[in-house]
């Protein structure tokens, strides 16, 4: 039994098959791509605006800005600037020194912690420790700074004295005067404590990617854990660990508040890490900003530009290393 229609509807025209996205998709892709460009735009704008403000200082001081270590503005009674000299050499060296101490102390501890988390801890303990370390990575630097100043300083000072007593013959551990408070050494240790959670979680992620078949092959050949780690895990993860360490270095160089509270910022190049005088670009900016006139602010912008470019470089190297070596074997 069929129903006769007085008028048959025309069959729908076949849809044209095409790979061209529809209008809505074109808009969608355009919007998302624009949004995705945001990081590029923001980083570009940061470089641009800091340059606009700071470039005339750089032009005036030339290389002296990076190598010099005086920071002075002389004004006459009316507030006009008579003479000025800006150099962040001591600050740059101080920044590097603190960051290097942080890396030297922090990275071995982080890598061993990551080994523990990946290959020794199991089940609940592992889960718990991982979340505690992630939580620590989210602690604000202000907290590390004041804890470092009020709680940690006295212990660290005692360690510094011990180092000086027994290793004082090494120039690095010598001090011109027995002032051990607020030294680059202590600032470096606080930075080490700050970067340990970050480097630990990166190393752990890289160790986690070690191919299981190789681990089991090593065990099947009778390897102990140490032998397995030496033969499989470390060759596999070396690049990633170095990348993670560089990432920690970048963090340590850009850290402001924690270093400012712990370190005694002084305008001279100081290689003696236990002595209570050091430099730090970010702390310099914070220290000088409150009292700076417009001209000096421009110099601080230039210092900020140098710091920005430096951290960008370190991050680029870290990213390259992690992508080149992380997740791949030999």
């Amino acid at each position, binding site marked *: 039994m069929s129903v006769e229609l007085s008028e048959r509807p025309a069959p729908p025209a076949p849809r044209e098959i095409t790979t061209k*996205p*529809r209008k*809505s998709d074109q*808009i969608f892709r355009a919007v*998302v*791509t624009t*949004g*995705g460009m*945001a*990081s*590029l735009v*923001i*980083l570009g704008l*940061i470089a641009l*605006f*800091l340059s606009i403000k700071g470039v005339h200082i750089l032009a005036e001081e030339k290389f002296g800005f990076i190598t010099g270590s005086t920071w002075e503005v002389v004004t006459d009674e009316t507030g006009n600037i008579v003479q000025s000299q800006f150099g962040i050499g001591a600050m740059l060296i101080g920044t590097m020194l603190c960051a290097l101490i942080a890396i030297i102390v922090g990275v071995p*501890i*982080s*890598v*061993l*912690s990551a*080994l*523990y988390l990946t290959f020794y801890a199991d089940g609940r303990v592992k889960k718990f420790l991982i979340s*505690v370390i*992630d*939580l*620590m990575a*989210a*602690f*604000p630097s*202000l*907290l*590390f700074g*004041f804890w470092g100043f*009020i*709680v940690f300083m006295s212990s660290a000072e*005692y*360690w510094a004295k*011990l180092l000086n007593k027994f290793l004082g013959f090494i120039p690095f551990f010598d001090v011109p005067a027995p002032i051990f408070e607020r030294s680059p050494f202590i600032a470096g240790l606080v930075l080490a*404590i700050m970067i*340990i*959670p970050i480097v630990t979680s990166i190393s752990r992620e890289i160790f986690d990617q070690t191919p299981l078949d190789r681990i089991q092959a090593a065990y099947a050949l009778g390897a*102990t854990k*140490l*032998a397995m*780690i030496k033969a499989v895990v470390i060759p596999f993860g070396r690049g990633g660990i170095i990348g993670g360490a560089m*990432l920690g270095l970048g963090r340590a*160089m*850009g850290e*402001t*508040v924690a270093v400012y509270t712990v370190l005694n910022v002084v305008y001279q190049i100081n290689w003696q890490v236990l002595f209570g005088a050091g430099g730090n670009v*970010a702390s310099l*900016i*914070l220290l000088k*900003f409150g009292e700076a006139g417009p001209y000096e602010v421009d110099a601080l*912008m230039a210092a*900020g530009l140098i710091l*920005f470019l430096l*951290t*960008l470089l370190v991050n680029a190297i870290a990213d390259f290393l992690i992508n080149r070596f992380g997740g791949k074997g030999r």
Partner: protein
Amino acid sequence: MTMTVPTPSKPWQPTSKNRIENVLVVVAAFVLAGLSVEFTGLSGKLGFFISLFIALLVLNFSFHYLQRGTAAAKDSLLQVLAVMAIVITLIPIVSIVVTVIAKGYKGLHWGILTKDMALASVNDPIANGGLLHALVGTIMMVGGALILSFPIGVLTALYLTEIRGSLTRPIKFLVQAMSGVPSIVAGLFILSSLVYPVTKELSGLMGSLALTILMIPTIARTAEEMLHLIPNELREAGVALGGTQWRTVAGVVLPAARSGLVTAIILGIARIIGETAPLLLVSGGGDALNLNPTEGAMGSLPYYIWKSFLTGGTPEAAARAWAGMLVLLSFIFILFGLARYLSGRKVA
């Protein structure tokens, strides 16, 4: 004829004898360390820790050497080192949390939620003044930063997971690089691009903008990870039902990633809530309650802590600062707990 029935056993697991021996080695190390602190020049916590460390290494090494030879002895050294490393990692976090709670609870009182510091100085008795202005300021600035950075972060994550254009690698790198931008540089950028040329005034909005720069990478990276967790079958199903890419993302992918996106928001907030350096430069940091983000100095929790520590000097000022720190830390704990809870749930 007797039949031997094999009893199920796990020969690879340590027997109870092994366990007891291991515990004995550790106890012996503690005793040795205690003795060395008592009778030699080493003293204090550091002396104890170092001698414990050496004792553990030596005892473990010799014990395993005698039992199972060189390879096992070396292996035990790595184990001791790894355990020591995790202990060293955990000491600061425990110390920080204990310090903040022990010093912070003295500065707590109900007034901190209802009063601001307009009529009180940091050195006044604790009962005067409170945190109201700082709490409101922090909430407003973080909220502002969130409104700006959430769309940008999610769009970046969508570009990296859904569009996957030719710029995926560079953008991944740029997001990574952006998360390494020193916070003080973010502050300087807002100063040089907006405060000096345009507004000529420090305000809460400027603080928000500086925080936005620091928040975008965290949100983008977390959201990217979360979107990667969405099974590809869902996308394929959406397209197979005739959905365009836009409909698939809006109707299938994003709803499925809802709890992941909330996690991204929470981690972003946790990242910036304690950020101090940019706020010192651009927010002005007032002492009175200010509800207008575009005009006038705005206080914030980190600024309040900073100011109490650096301009005070009395026990009251220190108590105030630690109380502020306690409030800040509790925020971070709560946010983190929420994030854990949400990411622990299965993807819808």
